[in-house]
C-alpha cells in the first residue's frame, strides 16, 4: 500500500515517515525550506512544494499530486496549516478524514485509530473508512535510514490569498521534544518575577524550562515554544518536574509520555498528584531551594 505523508513541519514529517513506513510505502510532500532534514527517513520520493503557503493552495497542489498517483492513505501532520489542508482535501477528494490520531492500524480493510476526546479526558478508538488522517505530534521517535530519498520540485497551485509578511515568533532554541529533563511551571508560580527562583533547580537538574498554557499563551511569562499541552508541545522526557501545575487534562495530554513525573503543589487535591510518580504537597518556593541544594 502507498501512503502520502504531508507536513509543513520537519519534525512531524520524519515522525510520520518513521511510523507509517512500517506498514506502507511512504512518499513525502512538504513545504519545509530545507529538505535535507527530511531526506533520510525512508520516503520513496519527496515532493518539495516550495512555494505553497496556505491551506487552500497546498490542498490544491496535493490534489494534483494525488490524481497522478495511487495513494491508499494520505496522512497529514496536525499543525495549524495541516488541519486546514486535511479538511479541504477530504471534501475535494471525497475521502473520509479522521483527525488528531495517535495510533493507527488496518483491520479487515478498515482503518482503526485512536485519538483523544473530551479535551483529552478519554481516548476514543474508532473503526472507520477514513483514508485521510491528521496525526498528533509525537507518534514516533524518528529513525533514519541509510539511503536518501529522491527529491522532486513541485510547483504550487495558484492562491487566492496573498502573503503580506512573515513574522518570526519570539523564541529561543529550546527543543523540548528532545529534552531528557524538563522543569515545567504553572499558574501556582504566582508571578513572572518568581521565575528566577526556579532557575537554580533547572540548572542543577540539567533541565529545560517549560510551562502550561496560561504561562506561555495567556500571560506570556515564557515563550510560546515552551508550552507543554494538548495545544502545545507533546514531550516525553525521562523526568518531568511539574511545579505549581494543577494538572488540567489538556496539560497532562502533553506530558503523558514522560518516564517519571514529579509534582510539587500546595493543593493536596490537585489532579496532578493523580498523574505523578512522586509528589510533595507544599509551597514550591520553600521546597525548590532545598531540593536544588540536595542535588548538589
Amino acid at each position, binding site marked *: 500500500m502507498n501512503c502520502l505523508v504531508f507536513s509543513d513541519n520537519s519534525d512531524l514529517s520524519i515522525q510520520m515517515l518513521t511510523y507509517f513506513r512500517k506498514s506502507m510505502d511512504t512518499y513525502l510532500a512538504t513545504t519545509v525550506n530545507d529538505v535535507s532534514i527530511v531526506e533520510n527517513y525512508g520516503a520513496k520520493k519527496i515532493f518539495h512544494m516550495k512555494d505553497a503557503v*496556505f*491551506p487552500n493552495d497546498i490542498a490544491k497542489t496535493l490534489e494534483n499530486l494525488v490524481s497522478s498517483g495511487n495513494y491508499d492513505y494520505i496522512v497529514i501532520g496536525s*499543525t495549524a496549516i495541516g*488541519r486546514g489542508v486535511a479538511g479541504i482535501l*477530504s471534501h475535494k477528494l471525497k475521502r473520509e478524514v479522521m483527525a488528531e490520531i495517535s495510533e493507527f492500524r488496518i483491520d479487515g480493510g478498515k482503518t482503526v485509530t485512536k485519538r483523544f476526546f473530551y*479535551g483529552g479526558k478519554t*481516548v476514543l478508538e474508532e473503526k472507520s473508512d477514513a483514508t485521510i488522517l491528521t496525526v498528533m505530534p509525537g507518534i514516533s521517535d524518528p529513525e533514519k535510514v541509510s539511503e536518501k530519498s529522491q527529491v522532486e520540485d513541485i510547483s504550487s497551485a495558484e492562491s487566492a490569498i496573498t502573503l503580506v509578511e512573515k513574522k518570526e515568533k519570539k523564541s529561543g532554541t529550546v527543543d523540548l521534544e528532545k529534552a531528557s529533563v524538563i522543569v515545567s511551571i504553572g499558574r501556582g508560580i504566582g508571578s513572572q518575577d518568581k521565575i528566577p527562583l526556579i532557575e537554580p533547580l533547572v540548572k542543577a537538574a540539567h533541565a529545560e524550562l517549560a510551562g502550561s498554557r496560561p504561562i506561555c499563551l495567556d500571560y506570556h511569562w515564557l515563550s510560546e515554544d515552551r508550552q507543554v499541552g494538548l495545544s502545545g508541545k507533546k514531550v516525553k522526557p525521562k523526568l518531568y518536574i511539574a511545579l505549581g501545575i494543577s494538572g488540567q487534562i489538556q496539560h497532562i495530554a502533553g506530558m503523558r509520555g514522560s518516564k517519571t513525573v514529579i509534582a510539587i503543589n500546595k493543593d493536596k487535591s490537585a489532579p496532578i498528584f*493523580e498523574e505523578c510518580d512522586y*509528589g510533595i504537597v507544599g509551597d514550591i518556593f520553600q521546597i525548590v531551594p*532545598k531540593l536544588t541544594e540536595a542535588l548538589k
Partner: protein
Amino acid sequence: MPYNIIVLIKQIVDIDLLKVDSSTGTPQVQGLPLRLENLSKNAVEEAVRIKEKHGGKITAICFGTEKSTSAMKEAYAMGVDEGYILTGYTGNNPSLTADVISKKIREIPHDIIILGNQSAESYTGMLQGKLSSILEEPLLSDAVKVEINERSATVTMALENENIVAKAQMPVIISVTQEINDPRFPPVMQIMTAGRKKINIEAAQFSPDDKIEVLSNTAPRSERKKTVFEDQEKGITEIAKVIREGMK
C-alpha cells in the same frame, strides 16, 4: 462599510466537570451541564468587534439540539443579531456538520464567516477546511488578529514556528484562536433582552451516517506510582534521589 457576518457556534458538555468512572474508565456524560464552547465565544467576540467598528449584521448558526437555546441566548447577549439552531446533532462528525452548516450558510448572504479553529472537546479542526472547500471561499485560519478594509480581510495567522500575515478578498472564512481576544461578559440588561429574542429552530437536513464505529471511549489508564509526600523533608530527600537517577 457594513458587513454581513456569520458566526458558527457550538454547544458542548462542560468537559471541565466531566468525571471518569475510576474502575471502568468510562466518562460520565449523563446529566452534565451544557455550555457554549470556549472558542465560539472568541468567534462571537471577534464578530461583534467588527460590527462595532464597521456596522453590519451578525447571524449565528449552531448545529445542536433543542437544548442549544441557552448557547444561542449567550451569543445574543454578546451582540449577535439573529440565530439559527439546526437540530439533530448527535455527536462529533465533521463531514456531516460541514454538510449541514454549509446548506444553511448558502441561504444567508455574507461577507465573512467566523468560527473557532479547534473546538475544546474534539480538537479536530476539520470544519474550517471542509467549509472552505464546499463554499469555495478562502480560509484564513488560526487568526490572532483580524483587520477589515473595504472588501478585504487581513489576518495574522498563528502557526507553530512563525506568524504569517495573509490577505484575501471577501467572502472569506476566518478561524480564530483562543488568544485573539477576551470575550466580553454582557451586562445584565443585555442578557435579559437576549432571553426574550426569537431564536429560529429548524431540523437539520441530512442522511444518517453510521460509518464510524466506536470501539472504545475510556480514560487512558494512569500507571503512575502516585507516591505523594506530605512530609516535606522526607519528600525532598526521596525526590532528590529520583532526580539524580533520572539525570544519569
